[in-house]
């Protein structure tokens, strides 16, 4: 389904507000949205909410043959799914260009940065290794999917436990969860992505763009970094030309954001571990508030109202200057009368413009009568369709004509009353079947 295109007004508004260092949702240009990480009951599943963007990730493992070029390395496969559930412009099934871009970014961030120790996934060299698969599904798209997806993917890799394996001779035993405690994966470091959106050919930049800002931006830069200040991936997309110091400045900002986010992930993991250890309830169901089945809440945010009054009065004054004096509202009448809950009125309003004067009403009536008499005489002169013989020698039953008030009058009756009634509006109807009674 095609997206509705963004109006020019909206685009200009967003660009103007970014130029004034303000954002539509009230954030500062370098602020990210609040992230919320919840883990599921199963090991290796989590949901991440970055503002309204929601992403779900799941890890699964199986034993497979290693790649021939790397016989002692396990396999890590990362996949990001964009379904129409997230945004109607995403196609089901076929991966669009945007999907390919996101997938490659996520792959580079996780696989090529060697965040997961693949050598520890080896069971027997050249024959059997663990193949770990991370699937990320986008549930709701409100901008910046890549950040949310990277948080979800790395949290889920840290959360997952794979079954324990013992190799004795040529026998390999995979212990089910009931027998032996599953083993965590060895994650070296946590690479997280931070997205920067650029406006006006790189002049203005915001961190963590929402969907609206993404549609308006000129281009974006994604930096994947871990908390040790190592850049794992860097990519610039879009029609922008940057200077070297802009790139360096962005990487400095990214360091701060990544450190914050890594702490948040660790806290979430700790919470989950404690709850599981103490035997409490955990999982997705616990994180959704009980009052609503579908929960889509927004926390109240503070808005700066200090200069609102001045701006409002300035606007009103400028309006007053431009309009004619008769249209302005006088000061005494700006009192609001509260009628009901949520209903208020200012002033009484003018007289109703819909009523007609008595004189005018009489005039109108005489006009109508005149018109009617004229039509009547016209009708008398012209032969009507119902005059004359309708041909009673037809084999069908006699024709029934519907009178003006839709009463069924037989032809004879009608001929009798022809002179008495006016004939406007007669409808002739041939009676084919006997379903109508006289």
């Amino acid at each position, binding site marked *: 389904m095609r997206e509705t295109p963004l109006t020019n007004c909206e685009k200009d508004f967003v660009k103007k507000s970014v130029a004034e260092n303000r954002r539509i949702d009230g954030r500062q240009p370098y602020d990210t949205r609040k992230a919320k990480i919840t883990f599921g009951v199963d090991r290796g599943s989590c949901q991440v909410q970055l503002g309204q963007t929601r992403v779900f990730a799941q890890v699964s493992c199986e034993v497979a043959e290693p790649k021939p070029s790397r016989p*002692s390395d396990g396999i890590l496969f990362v996949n990001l799914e964009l379904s129409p559930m997230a945004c109607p412009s995403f196609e089901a099934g076929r991966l669009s*260009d945007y999907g*390919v*871009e996101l*997938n*490659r970014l996520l792959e*580079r961030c996780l696989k*090529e*940065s*060697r965040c997961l*120790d693949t*050598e520890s996934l*080896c*069971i*027997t*060299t050249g024959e059997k290794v663990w193949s770990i698969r991370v699937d990320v599904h986008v549930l709701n798209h409100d901008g910046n999917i890549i950040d949310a997806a990277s948080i979800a993917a790395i949290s889920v890799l840290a959360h997952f436990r794979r079954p*324990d*394996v*013992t*190799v*004795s*001779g040529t026998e390999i035993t995979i212990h089910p969860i009931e027998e032996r405690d599953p*083993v965590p994966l060895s994650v*070296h470091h946590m690479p997280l992505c931070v997205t920067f959106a650029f406006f006006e050919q790189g002049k203005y930049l915001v961190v963590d763009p929402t969907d609206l800002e993404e549609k308006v931006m000129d281009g974006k*830069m994604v930096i994947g*970094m871990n908390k*040790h*200040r*190592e*850049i*794992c*991936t*860097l*990519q*610039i*997309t*879009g*029609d*922008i*030309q*940057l*200077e*070297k110091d802009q*790139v*360096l400045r962005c*990487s*400095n900002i990214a*360091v701060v954001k990544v450190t914050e986010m890594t702490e948040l992930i660790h806290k979430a993991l700790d919470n989950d571990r404690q709850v599981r250890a103490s035997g409490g309830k955990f999982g997705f169901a616990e994180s959704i508030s009980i009052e609503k089945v579908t929960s889509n809440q927004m926390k109240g945010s503070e808005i700066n109202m200090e200069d609102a009054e001045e701006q409002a009065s300035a606007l009103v004054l400028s309006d007053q200057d431009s309009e004619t004096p008769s249209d302005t509202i006088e000061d005494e009448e700006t009192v609001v009368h509260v009628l009901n809950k949520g209903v208020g009125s200012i002033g009484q309003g003018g007289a109703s413009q819909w009523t007609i004067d008595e004189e005018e009403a009489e005039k109108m009536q005489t006009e109508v009568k005149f018109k009617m008499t004229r039509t009547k005489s016209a009708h008398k002169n012209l032969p009507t369709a119902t005059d004359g013989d309708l041909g009673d020698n037809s084999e069908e039953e006699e024709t029934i004509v519907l009178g003006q008030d839709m009463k069924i009058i037989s032809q004879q009756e009608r001929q009798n009353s022809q002179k008495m009634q006016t004939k406007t509006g007669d409808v002739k109807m041939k009676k084919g079947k006997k379903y109508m009674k006289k």
Partner: protein
Amino acid sequence: MFSCYIVTFCSPRIRKTSSMAGMELLSDQGFRIDGRKPKELRRIQCRLGVFNQADGSAYIEQGNTKVLAAVYGPHETAGGRGKALHDRVLVNCQYSMATFSTGERKRRPRGDRKSKEMTMHLQQTFNAAIMTSLYPRSQIDIYVEVLQSDGGNYCASVNAATLALIDAGIPMKDYVCACSASFVKDCPMVDINFLEESSGGPELIVATLPKSSQIVFLEMNSRLHEDNLSKVLDVAVKGTKDVYQVLDNAVRDHISEVSAFHKLDQS
């Protein structure tokens, strides 16, 4: 900790050097695997106007990487008026690797994820460089074919496409020159080949407009510490300036040859 029957050899994971036995990316004397110094580019040979069917074409060899590029356009948008942009030209790229270009035979020359990604990157790069507002409702096609891949595929593709666009006479803001760089043993290296790429060290690819040093494309793989980013970026941008020198000389030589030929024809 589980006990594994086969003992895997422990190598430092922070910066994984070449897994091949004994091969060092940077020797003690400061030479690389192929004998270059760290700041040296590979030998670039290029030729313009290799095809007569295409509006513009070029062939470039950067070391052992060989790339062909062909440009068609500006012409009417294929696919009807649906895809045409009302105020600028549509740049359509296709990046394809020949099946014989890599060590192991490639099953799919185009259409897999990495090729699609490359295609998008090329499109984006040239959208920024071509003066798109001069040809509204039209389309420019850029086809790039990699004949032999030895590292720096994207860079060679961008350089070849630039030459092909110049050969086709399409106005651009500036040359687009691309170069890659890496960081091994505290030393930034420029223009990396396949062995250095696959060793796992960081790889930074940058495409710039050389006269203004503005970056139109930047991509980095593997891990690089933030403190070293500035050095590596500098080296890469300098590399693009050197590439620009080579390409510019090649273009001027080509034009003087062609114009000399025409003068002889007229006389």
